[in-house]
C-alpha cells in the first residue's frame, strides 16, 4: 500500500471508529500531498475530511492551502445537502402520494447514520429500488408529473434512465434490480422483505444494506469511489453483532452472492480492521487492489509515461475490463476498441485499444502527443512512439 493510501485509510479508520486503536490516528504525513489529495478527490472524501477539519480534527503536516480547499469543499457540499434534503422530502411525498413502496439505496441509505453531518457524504443522485419494473415505471410517471425529466439515456442498465428535477437539480435513479447481470425475481423478493423504515423513507435492514453495498462495489463502474465504499462497508460491518453477521452470511447464500460478499469484505476488513471474511485471492480482489491506487498515480501500466500523461486514461481503459480477465491467459486474439472518456484530470478524450493474445495482453493507448504500448503480462515494458505511425 502506498504511503498516501495508508495515511488516508488510517484517517478513515479514526473517523469511523474502526479497527484496533493502534491503527487509528494521524500517521506520519505522506511526502506527496498532491497524490494524497488526488486520492481524496477521486474517492469523493473532500467534504468528509473538510467537515472533520472544521469540527476540530487535526491532520499533521497538511499544507494550509489544502486544508482550506477541503473546508471549501465541505461548505459547497453543505449547500448541496440543504437542497437535497428538501428535494428528497418532496420526492418521498410524491411516491407516497402515488401509493408506491420503495427502498433507499447507497448514499441516501447511509448518509443519516454513518456520517455526523449530511455534507460529509457527497452524492450525485438518489438511488431507489422499486418492487417491480412496473412499479419503477409508475414511479417514473409520478416523478415526471412532479417536474422530473430524463437526464441522460442509459439503455440496458438495471435502473431506468436517471431523472432530474431541473429546479432542485436532484437526480434520481429508479432501480428494478440491483446488479448486472440481474438478481432473479426470487432473490429480489428475499431482499425486498428486508425493508425497514428509516426516517421518512425506507432502507434495507443492516445485513441487507451491507450485502447491497458489497454487491454494488463488485458491480462498480471504474470511476466510482472504491475506497469510500469499502470503508462504508467496514463501518456497516462493525455494527453487526454475531447474530446479524450469521444472518448476513445466510442472506448472501440465499441470493447466490456469498462469494462476492466474501471477496469484498476480505478487502474491507484488511483496510479498516472491521470484522470480515476470508477469501482466496481472486480476479475481483486483484482488480480492486489496483483500483485503490490508481488515481493520480502511475499504475504499473502507466509508470514511465512522460509526465504521467495518460495515466488516468490507462487506468480507465484497464478498469473497464471485466475483473476476471485481468491476468487470465486469453486464448483468442481480439481487438477491442474502447472510446476513452474525459477523465477527472481534464485530459482530452483519446482512443485506446486492447489486443489480447495467448498469455499476453497489449494495451495501445494514443494521446495527442504520442502513443504508448504496454504489455502488462510481459512485465513492465512501456514503449512510446510518436503519433501518426503504424497503429501497431
Amino acid at each position, binding site marked *: 500500500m502506498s504511503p498516501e493510501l495508508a495515511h488516508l485509510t488510517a484517517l478513515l479508520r479514526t473517523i469511523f471508529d474502526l479497527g484496533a486503536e493502534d491503527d487509528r490516528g494521524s500517521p506520519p504525513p505522506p511526502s506527496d500531498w498532491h497524490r494524497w489529495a488526488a486520492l481524496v478527490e477521486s474517492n469523493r472524501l473532500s467534504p468528509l475530511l473538510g467537515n472533520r477539519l472544521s469540527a476540530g480534527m487535526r491532520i499533521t503536516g497538511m499544507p494550509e492551502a489544502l486544508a482550506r480547499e477541503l473546508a471549501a469543499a465541505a461548505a459547497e457540499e453543505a449547500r448541496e445537502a*440543504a437542497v437535497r434534503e428538501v428535494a428528497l422530502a418532496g420526492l418521498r411525498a410524491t411516491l407516497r402520494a402515488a401509493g408506491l413502496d420503495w427502498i433507499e439505496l447507497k448514499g441516501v441509505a447511509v448518509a443519516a447514520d454513518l456520517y*455526523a453531518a449530511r455534507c460529509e457524504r457527497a452524492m450525485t443522485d438518489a438511488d431507489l429500488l422499486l418492487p417491480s419494473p412496473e412499479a419503477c415505471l409508475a414511479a417514473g410517471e409520478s416523478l415526471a408529473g412532479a417536474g422530473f425529466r430524463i437526464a441522460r439515456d442509459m439503455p440496458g442498465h438495471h435502473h431506468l434512465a436517471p431523472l432530474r428535477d431541473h429546479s432542485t437539480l436532484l437526480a434520481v435513479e429508479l432501480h428494478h434490480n440491483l446488479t448486472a447481470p440481474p438478481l432473479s425475481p426470487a432473490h429480489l423478493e428475499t431482499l425486498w422483505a428486508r425493508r425497514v423504515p428509516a426516517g421518512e423513507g425506507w432502507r434495507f435492514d443492516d445485513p441487507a444494506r451491507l450485502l447491497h453495498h458489497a454487491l454494488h462495489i463488485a458491480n462498480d463502474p471504474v470511476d466510482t469511489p472504491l475506497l469510500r465504499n469499502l470503508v462504508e462497508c467496514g463501518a456497516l460491518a462493525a455494527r453487526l453483532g454475531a447474530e446479524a453477521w450469521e444472518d448476513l452470511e445466510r442472506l448472501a447464500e440465499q441470493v447466490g452472492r456469498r462469494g462476492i460478499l466474501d471477496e469484498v469484505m476480505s478487502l474491507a476488513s484488511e483496510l479498516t480492521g472491521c470484522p470480515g471474511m476470508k477469501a482466496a485471492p481472486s480476479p475481483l480482489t486483484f482488480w480492486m487492489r489496483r483500483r485503490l491506487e490508481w488515481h493520480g498515480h502511475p499504475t504499473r501500466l502507466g509508470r514511465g509515461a512522460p509526465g504521467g500523461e495518460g495515466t488516468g486514461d490507462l487506468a480507465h481503459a484497464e478498469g473497464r475490463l471485466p475483473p476476471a480477465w485481468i491476468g487470465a491467459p486469453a486464448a483468442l486474439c481480439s481487438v477491442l476498441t474502447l472510446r476513452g472518456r474525459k477523465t477527472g484530470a481534464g485530459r482530452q478524450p483519446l482512443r485506446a485499444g486492447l489486443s489480447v493474445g495467448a498469455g499476453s495482453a497489449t494495451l495501445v493507448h494514443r494521446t495527442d502527443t504520442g502513443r504508448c504500448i504496454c504489455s502488462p503480462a510481459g512485465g513492465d515494458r512501456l514503449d512510446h512512439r510518436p503519433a501518426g505511425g503504424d497503429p501497431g
Partner: protein
Amino acid sequence: MPVTATFHEATLGPDLVSEWRGDPLAAAAREVFPVAAAGSPAGRRVGFHLQPAPGGGGVLRMDGTPLCSVPADTHLAPLIEKIGSVLAVRLAPGWLVLHAGLMGIGDRFLLLPAERRSGKSTLCLALARHGWTYAGDDLVFFHPGRRVFHPFCKALTLKEGSFPLLPAEGKVHFDPARGPIRYFAPEHQCDSAIPAGRVVALATPLFDPASPPEGEIRPLAPELAALSLVQQLVGGAARGEGALEWIRELCALPCRILRHPGAPVSVQLARRCLEERT
C-alpha cells in the same frame, strides 16, 4: 413569530422564508439577509439553528438535520450566504434566475449581468451610495407568467479588495474559498416585486484599471448580449419554460458594456446607461 434578538426571519427567494434561531446564527443571518420577512407568505419555510461547540462555531442544522460543522463564528455568515442563495435559486420552480445585479433610480432599473469577479458588487456599492435602489448584487429572479422581477434580498457581499471602500469599522467574516468577506446593507433596498417594464436597460460592468479615466460605454450587439445572458442564466436555458423568450425580450433593451476604472466614474456611466434610451 416575533422578531427578537435571537431570532431572525428573512425572505430568501420569491416563495421562500428562512428562520434563523439563536445567536450568533441569527445575528449573522441578519447581516447577510437583512430584510425581515413580512407577513406569512404561503411559500416554503426552512428553519436553521446552530448546535454550539465550546470554542465557537458548532453544527449547523436545517429543520433538525445536521448539515455541517462550522469551525468558528466568523465562518457563519458566508456559509449562511451560500446555503441561502442555493436554496433561493433551487426552491423557486417557475422562476428564472439570472446571475446579475439589479439597481434602480425611481421606477427605472438597470440590469447588470456579469460573471463572478467582474466587479458587480463593487459597482452596486458605489451606486447604492449615490442613492440608487438596491435589488441585488448577485441573483435576479424573473417569473415569465407573472411578468415580474423579484429582488434577491441579500446584503452586498464584498471581498477583501473592496474593503477600502467600506467604513473602517465593520465585521470581517471568513470564507475558505473566497477569503475575508464583509457585508453591506444599502439604505434603499427594494424588497417587493418589480414589474418587467421597469427594467429599462442592460449593462455589463467591466472593471478595468487600464480603461480611460472617464471610462467608456460600448454598445453590445443583441446577439452577443443574448450569449452573455444565456451564460449567466442559472441552470441554463433548460431550467424553465420561457427562458429563451425572456432573453429575447432583454436583448431588445439597450445593451451596453460599461468599462470603468472604478467609482465615481462607474456611477456616472451607469446613470447614462439608465437614462439614454438608445
